[in-house]
């Protein structure tokens, strides 16, 4: 803890966020895309806790509590949507969802 600065933690958060963003952009399996989205949320939580710790306030940590709550609700609804989509189209690939495409 002595020589690990705020910058280290923020950089790690930024890199994890970038990895999640890459996954969202690159992957076609909706479930994996969704996991990468969750990874981006987790990265922002890390940044919040780091700021909270280094500023000596409780607010960022409490905000993380709410982020976890919202993320849990979001996962439940999102996975239900993916299952409903699978029932309708029989696939979870985002490249298969082209019924609105002009062909």
């Amino acid at each position, binding site marked *: *803890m002595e*020589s*690990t*600065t*705020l*910058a*280290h*933690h*923020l*950089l*790690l958060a930024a*890199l*994890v966020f*970038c*990895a999640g963003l*890459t*996954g969202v952009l*690159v*992957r076609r*399996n909706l*479930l*994996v895309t*969704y*996991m*990468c989205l*969750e*990874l981006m949320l*987790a990265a922002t*939580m*890390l940044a919040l*806790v*780091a700021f*909270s*710790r*280094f*500023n*000596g*306030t*409780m607010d960022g*940590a*409490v905000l*993380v*509590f*709410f982020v*976890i*709550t*919202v993320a*849990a*609700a*979001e*996962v*439940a*609804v999102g*996975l*239900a949507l993916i*299952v*409903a989509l*699978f*029932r309708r189209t029989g696939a*979870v690939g985002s490249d298969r969802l082209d019924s609105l495409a002009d062909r």
Partner: protein
Amino acid sequence: MPDPLFVFIAALTLGACCLLVASRNPVTSAMGMILALVGIAAEFFLLDAYFLGVLQVLVYAGAVMVLFLFIIMLLDVQPPGGAYPWKRALAGGAAFLLLSAAAFALLAPEGSLAKAAGPTPPELAANPESYATAAKAFGRSLYTKYMLPLQMAGLLLLLALVGVVTLAKAPKSAD
């Protein structure tokens, strides 16, 4: 030079992120995700946020990822055929990890990010909720300053529950 424990945890987390993004099998991706979330929880422990670290492991790595694995196995999606692009994946992963190491080496010690942490601003110094590790501090914050958001979070969970039940109904009743 940062704490060796930090270096280990950061490497573990970033490697797990690469596994999540690069693996073609969704179950392997989920395992990478669990590893990354546990790494971030370990980061929380390094930042003295013990309660949040435990919460992260319980809620995220526990409940949420089990839900993900259930859905992955329920849908039983076959990975796409064809040869796995090893070269591209390895090059991407190596580039990402090298760039990460370079970013830590160049930016962290004397970069602009490090200078940003100056003296505590007066509005923060006047904050009654100073940083604490005990779960009690969360309770105090949640039931005083963040009372309304807490109620809203409860409402949100209820709405999500109702929404999931509606979505999960058989589609025949809808048409």
